[in-house]
């Protein structure tokens, strides 16, 4: 047996994390050398409920749980652990936008048991009667007091709890500084101006009305959430003008950013973190003129036919141990202080994951009205088909 190192420096930790992310070392090696594996084992032993058991403690919850989620948003090892603990395997459906999820639920019969809606969608899910109120007694790992209220409040509508916080993050921009004389950019004004100038053909915007229209609104200094007709008309004019200069309209922007085809993109903070870790010249920045701050939640659609499995799964994922592994896998912070405390210092001080307060203040949470506003939806569709 090799001797385990007693401690690991911050620098070594980050190097190991990068090696692990690039796939040059295995997860086991990573957990071993960083000591996270030992920490997991110790905590697991201290909380007997978390230890693997031969008979499934949760009882028979069925053979599967169907999860609707976003891309690159989980640690598959956690799913395996869940299957081992409960006998239910996790079937994952990946989506590109909240609008797409809502569309599927409105059409009926999705077969989903758990999904991960974003803060601004809850009002409509409740209004449309598509979401199940949560019974906290079935989620022993949920400790409301551990969650930052700023990222937890949108999960409740009219005093009823519908979602418990998963992760939060920001929507900013990622730029390959190599092509801009080593300089970054820091506003949506610069973002669109440089796209129509020397970055022509190199910029990606999301295939997502909230962030793409929101950024174009920020360009003019309007609110990210505006549904004002005149302001939307301005945003449309800008987007149509920018379109010939775009590399692509897609929410899957990591591949072209990585291979050098795209130099600039609207970017979620976790993707920004992943890109910056692997390619240091790609910088992530928040717009000084606005942008989005968001929080995703674990929730259960009303139509779920395996609610036992749904509760068991959410409860499992809320376990700070499991949650910390999730954060290491995708780079999005969590609002759960118990999980936060378990993160390596290096990540707690990471400027992409936890930006300074003054950088966050221009950002807005998405507003419910944008989800269903017909003008925003049609504007996005017109922009794409133009």
């Amino acid at each position, binding site marked *: 047996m090799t001797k385990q190192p007693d401690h690991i420096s911050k620098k070594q930790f980050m190097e190991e994390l990068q090696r692990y992310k690039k796939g040059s070392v295995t997860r086991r090696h990573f957990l071993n050398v960083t000591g996270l594996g030992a920490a997991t084992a110790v905590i697991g032993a201290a909380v007997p409920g978390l230890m693997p058991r031969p008979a499934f403690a949760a009882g028979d919850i069925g053979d599967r749980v169907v999860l609707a989620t976003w891309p690159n948003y989980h640690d598959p090892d956690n799913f395996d652990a869940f299957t081992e603990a409960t006998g239910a395997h996790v079937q994952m459906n990946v989506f590109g936008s909240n*609008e797409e999820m*809502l569309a599927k639920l*409105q059409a009926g019969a999705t077969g989903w048991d758990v999904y991960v809606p974003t803060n601004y969608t809850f009002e409509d899910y409740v209004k*449309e009667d598509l979401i199940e109120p949560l019974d906290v007694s079935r989620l022993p790992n949920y400790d409301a007091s551990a969650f930052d209220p700023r990222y937890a409040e949108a999960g409740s509508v009219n005093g009823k709890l519908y979602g418990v916080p998963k992760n939060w993050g920001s929507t900013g921009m990622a730029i390959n500084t190599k092509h801009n004389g080593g300089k970054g950019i820091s506003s949506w004004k610069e973002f669109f101006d440089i796209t129509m100038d020397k970055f022509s053909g190199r910029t990606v915007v999301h295939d997502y009305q909230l962030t793409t229209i929101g950024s174009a609104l920020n360009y003019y200094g309007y609110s990210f959430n505006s549904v004002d007709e005149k302001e939307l008309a301005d945003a449309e004019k800008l987007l149509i003008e920018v379109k010939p200069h775009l590399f692509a*309209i897609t929410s899957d922007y990591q591949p072209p950013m990585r*291979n050098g085809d795209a130099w600039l993109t609207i970017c979620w903070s976790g993707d920004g973190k992943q890109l910056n870790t692997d390619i240091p010249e790609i910088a992530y920045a928040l717009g000084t003129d606005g942008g989005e701050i968001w929080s995703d939640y674990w929730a259960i659609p009303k139509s779920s036919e395996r609610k036992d499995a749904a509760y068991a799964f959410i409860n499992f994922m809320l376990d700070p141990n499991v949650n910390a592994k999730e954060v290491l896998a995708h780079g999005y912070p969590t609002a759960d202080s118990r999980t936060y405390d378990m993160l390596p210092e290096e990540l707690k001080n990471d400027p992409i994951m936890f930006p300074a307060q003054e950088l966050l203040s221009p950002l807005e949470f998405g507003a419910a009205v944008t989800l*269903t506003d017909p003008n925003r939806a049609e504007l*996005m*569709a017109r922009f794409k*088909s133009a």
Partner: protein
Amino acid sequence: MTQRTRNFLLLAPAGTWFLLMLIVPLSVVFIFSFGERGSAGGYVPAFTFEQYANLPARWAAFRNTMTLAPIGTLAALLIAYPLAYFLAVKVSDKWKMMLLVLVIVPFWTSILIRSYAWIFLLGGRGIPALLEWIGIESVRLINTPFAVLVGIVYGYLPLMVFPIYVSLDRLDKRLLEASSDLGAKPWRTFLQITLPLSIPGVATGCMLVFILLMGEYLIPMLLGGGKVFFVGNALVDLFLQSRNWAFGSAVAVTLVVVMLITVTIYMRFISRVSGTREDVALI
């Protein structure tokens, strides 16, 4: 059992299938196209022509489809014909089977995976990098109409090859010998004998590919980067993003009508062309 009942029973499975899978859904789409979008999306019953009046907002999608579908069909034909000719006429029986299988092999892998491969090939580190190496710089292929064209021709080529192959394979070789005995040059034999007799295969292949291209969605999305927009993409957006079922239905009905008209004109044209030898010989 009378002849009548037997006929009825024999037709029942197909009839039920058509009714449930074609007539009913199409009727629903038709009815929805006169409705309105619900306040949170979806469909609200109404009787309005508003959705049809809004069709010009998707003009670009129709224009892209109606340009790239015929060009793609033509390109596939130009590539498939020599290949099918080679397979049917030139290759010995021993190799024929194996080569035919090779044409089908790509179908064993999902079109999604194969299109992702093209994303790499056409992206900055693929063909453009090779071109740069030999001195042709800053060529951009991915996310252009050209990339979409390459993708659709690649994806649907076998559907063009096979009907043409079948019609050429059935060709009576004695006709070719007769033509050459009578002093015709090979080129003339091809134009006057081979080509006219393979018109049914060409017509079938073109129609198969064209109809599928009209409804194409995946390839423009992957290789067009969301910038080259087909009607199929507009439909997906309307149902899965903006949740405007009424307008989506109107666009769908319009696409069906456009397709019916195009295909009818095409069939007329084909039957006229292959109707009499005289006409065919002239082209």
